């Protein structure tokens, strides 16, 4: 029930958007994430974008993960 998937916004009109999820186009509501812009990735749950994914945070996490080694940095 709390499943959500990342999707890219391709068009916005009013409080609605077209997103692409794994190549499939869908309409979602932006009522809960009015700050979302075309090109943003949002987490989609039950027809609504519930968060705009933070690119910088994702990048930092991935860098942290890639730099992690067996004796790596503390969390």
């Amino acid at each position, binding site marked *: *029930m*709390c499943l959500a998937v990342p999707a890219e916004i391709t068009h916005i009109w009013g409080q609605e958007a077209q997103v692409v999820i794994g190549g499939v186009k869908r309409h979602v509501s932006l009522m809960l*994430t009015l700050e979302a812009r075309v090109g943003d990735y949002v987490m989609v749950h039950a027809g609504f974008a*519930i*968060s705009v994914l933070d690119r910088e945070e994702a990048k930092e996490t991935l860098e942290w993960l890639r730099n*992690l080694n067996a004796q790596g940095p503390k969390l």
Partner: protein
Amino acid sequence: MIPYVDSFRDPQVINVLLDRIRQLACGPVSFMEFCGGHTHAILKFGLRALMPAQIKMLSGPGCPVCVTSQVDLDRALALASQDGIVLATFGDMMRVPGTKGSLQEARAEGADVRVVYSCLDAVSLARAHPGRQVVFLAVGFETTAPTIAASVLKAHEEGLSNFSVLSLLKLTPPAMDAILSAREVKLHGILGPGHVTTVVGTRAWEFMPAKYRIPCAVAGFEPADILKAILALLELVKCGKPSVVNAYRRSVRAEGNPKARHFMKKVFHVVEAHWRGLGWLEESGLAFREEFQAFDAAVRFPLKVGSDGEEPRGCRCGEVLRGVMEPPQCPLFNKSCTPERPVGPCMVSGEGSCAAYHRYALSPKAF
């Protein structure tokens, strides 16, 4: 390559995370993953078998369909059988057995039950069928509740008089509090629900370290997200300073999603709610505020339910939901209770622990 998915499934990254986890795991610890989505991901990606045996992962009550009480299920079934009603619901609810059959069986007997992807689809149904009463059966936690509230506001704006919602919505912190205060299982840390926390914010879990001295790491749903959170929990256990860690920063903020919570608070107020396995919990459910009562299906269609909500005979879903019992320990598991012929909801829902064990972990090695 799917952005935000594939990189968090990179085998190299997973192996290094597992190495770190193996190094840190020096004694037996039990962590509970609150969310059924985590249970499924942990088993689907084989993480349980890859992690050291000292780390025990227990499933929690984070499956909205599973914690829906038998009485509430029977109310939904009674509603679906009324003439002139179209009952719209998420697909997960269709096969959950009530005292007398499921919604799927009710549909086979002539009830108009529709599966929708979003509550907004139910609003569209009401718009398209002005002569019918469309009721949305709302089951879900804080992730889902704002989407229901936003749909109600949309129906309100459009002046739709044939749309209503049966709210079985629930709030997750009281359930976690109930489990921790009962102390039925010894827990050393909690894997926090990523999408609930996207809405409520990490502050909602501060009570765990403050009241119970138990750390919480909020996790995403890809394997690297889950292992990163488990590593964080091990670090916190080791240093003996419990706190709340956000291990899903690309989606979760400390303050959550205030807009989503605003909608939720505008339409609903907090009430006592009945949970399968946990009983009545104060301030754990969402009911309509007076100004939106026109959309409350419980008010619009007063129901008399004949059943007393007795749980299915022999069903141990309640214990599974509290982490007291693992699905394979239930005498019915994979014998008289299977996804094809479920006895309890944990074997039906896409977030149910029994369904996850049945689907991904039937080999004894996986346990």
